[in-house]
């Protein structure tokens, strides 16, 4: 006891139970994992045991569906990247490496559950039924968000880091007011998911969201994909203890999960969503993963990180490990994998074609929807622009 007092008196508190993270690929003993980097089922542990029942009803078809999701989402992402390089998109934020974190979380959600993404959540969008083509408009500059958020239960991408954490919390507060938690009706009880990254955890809005969620016991799951890089800044520029450990200070549970293990992510997220739907309040999930690519197509990671680190994570690839598992269990064969490859090719073709054919908007459209109700100032300028442009047509 006296040692603790001396320690706290002589400097900032230190999380003594956290191993020093010299190896950034090591999630430590608290990390929930069901499938290791080689695709082997991990033997049950005290840490993973509370979640194992959430895999009991996962069928062989479900496992193949997870794999299909991972492959197709990676292909969507690759196509987005290629379209940027070909000049069809202005920017693309790649999710390469984070497929399992997003598919695990996305597939854990029920249709009525609402997701609030950042701007890299193409895999969650996929799971919520957003056509990947509709993700492209904002990166092509034809709109600021081309899908129906309310219909998909997938909010528009939020570019200002952390803003969406509060939107998710407020939405969840509304869910509670609607009496849509704790009824026991699986089609009615609703949870909300808020997505951000390791950099987002430093934002005021992130921390305020956790405060609001805690004091209102809102049915929200904060899902932090710790991909280890906030553009050029590594974890040690953002926090000094694990993201999941900070939940305790807000008054609700936090758990670290292997974000490259789709089974673990799925199980842990299901547990947290169930907790939320029961009215037991928020959970913080830290999905321990890695951003294999650049921050966006505008970024150059060779300026700030070494390739050896990327290689370490390449050996932990989320798709390779599930494929190894499925093949070892004889749940898929090469012909099935080949068919999936063809499906991915066709998806990519459709995305490319749809992107290239996406029309530029009429300029008059930029004045639309500034307000829901009439606004004479906007109407005046729209009229002036129309008259100005019409003047050229007469010449």
């Amino acid at each position, binding site marked *: 006891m006296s040692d603790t007092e001396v320690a706290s008196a002589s400097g900032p508190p230190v999380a003594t139970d956290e191993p020093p993270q010299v190896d950034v690929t090591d999630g430590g003993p608290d990390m929930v994992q069901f499938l290791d980097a080689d695709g082997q089922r991990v033997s049950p542990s005290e840490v993973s045991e509370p979640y194992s029942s959430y895999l009991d009803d996962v069928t062989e078809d479900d496992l193949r569906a997870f794999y299909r999701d991972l492959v197709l989402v990676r292909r969507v992402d690759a196509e987005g990247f290629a379209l940027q390089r070909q000049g069809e998109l202005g920017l693309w934020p790649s999710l390469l490496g984070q497929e399992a974190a997003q598919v695990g979380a996305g597939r854990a959600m029920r249709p009525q559950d609402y997701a*609030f993404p950042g701007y890299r959540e193409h895999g969650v969008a996929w799971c919520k039924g957003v056509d990947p083509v509709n993700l492209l408009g904002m990166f092509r500059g034809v*709109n*600021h*968000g*081309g899908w*129906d*958020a*309310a219909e998909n239960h997938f*909010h*528009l991408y*939020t570019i*200002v880091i952390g*803003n969406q*954490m*509060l*939107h*998710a*919390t*407020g*939405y*969840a*507060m*509304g*869910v509670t*007011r*609607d009496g849509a938690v704790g009824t026991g009706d699986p089609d009615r009880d609703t949870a909300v998911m808020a997505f951000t990254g390791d950099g987002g955890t430093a934002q*005021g*809005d992130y921390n*305020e*969201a956790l*405060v*609001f969620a805690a*004091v209102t016991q809102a049915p929200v799951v904060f899902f932090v994909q710790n991909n280890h890089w906030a553009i050029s800044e590594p974890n040690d520029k953002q926090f000094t203890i694990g993201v999941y450990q900070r939940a305790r200070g807000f008054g609700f549970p936090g758990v670290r999960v292997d974000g490259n293990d789709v089974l673990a992510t799925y199980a842990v997220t299901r547990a947290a969503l169930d907790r939320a739907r029961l009215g037991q309040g928020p959970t913080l999930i830290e999905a321990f993963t890695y951003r294999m690519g650049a921050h966006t197509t505008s970024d150059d990671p060779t300026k700030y990180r070494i390739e050896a680190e990327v290689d370490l994570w390449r050996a932990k690839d989320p798709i390779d490990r599930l494929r190894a598992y499925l093949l070892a269990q004889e749940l898929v064969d090469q012909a099935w994998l080949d068919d999936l490859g063809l499906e991915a090719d066709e998806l990519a073709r459709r995305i490319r074609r749809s992107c290239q054919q996406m029309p530029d908007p009429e300029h008059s459209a930029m004045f*639309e*929807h*500034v*307000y*829901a*109700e009439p*606004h*004479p*100032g*906007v109407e005046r300028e729209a009229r002036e622009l129309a008259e100005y442009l019409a003047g050229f047509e007469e010449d």
Partner: protein
Amino acid sequence: MGTSAGAATKMSIAKALNAGMRAALEADEKVVLMGEDVGKLGGVFRITESLQKDFGEERVVDTPLAESGILGAAVGLCLRGYRPVVEIQFDGFVYPAFDQIVSQVAKMHYRSLGRLTLPLVIRIPYGGGIGAVEHHSESNEAYFAHTAGLRVVSCATPEDAYWMVQQAIASDDPVVLYEPKRRYHERGEIEQAQSAPLGLHQAAVRVTGEDVTLLTYGPMVKVAMAAAQAAQMEHGPSVEVVDLRSLSPLDVPVVTESVRKTGRAIAVTEAQTFLGMGAELAATVQRECFYHLEAPVLRVGGYNIPYPPSRHEEVFLPDLDRILHAVDTVMSY
């Protein structure tokens, strides 16, 4: 409220806002009030007094002390179908929420191509004249009037307070309602008729005159009206007072009609003048009334310094004499 239609009630702006919100809470169960200390305490100005007692903690919510959190959570509530009315405790405390208001509240309808609406009201007690400490006397309406996607209005009378807060709540757009805190306890007649006498974005001519138009709003309406009366008593110029009521959008037709008649315009604000509402009004008046103008458009407002320690208020804030001095100036051209 227990007053029958047609009867006039005498009420302060504070009580009128309270009555307006009470009516909105009664009319629509989706209306939720939220803010710091708005519950048991009834807000530091008691504008929400008794509302939590009467409507419950789910309808009148004491939030954590975090303005960005309040606004961000209100956005989420809107997306779930609610109509939050947010109280910012003092003008100078809105800045932590600036990002949510400007980046999210103002743009959500636009970026969603009209699919998402944010029927959100942000109430801000504003302005000086109460001898307050730093950050409690600011007039920051220009920041929000500058931001497309927001509607910005300010009430000057109990009747407007009563109706405008209800109209703001009924609007499907986000509305920033600036409440003149130094006028909170001034009383006036309210005709609780079946419907509001004016639209939310209509200006009102408070005093009719022939020679000079004072364009003003909020706490300065009373000062401008006093200036008009003083000029009349002294057999000086005939002064018209236009209470803008709405800062975004501006009621350009009412402004234009008045200035074309008088040929002279002075914008009167508590806010610092540089790039403020007066600048916008001057540009608008010159565009719409150029051939009618007898003098340049002048501005009377706060000096372009941070809001000073309150012992300077009587000089910093425009008063009757400074307005009359400007009236004399435009009359001398």
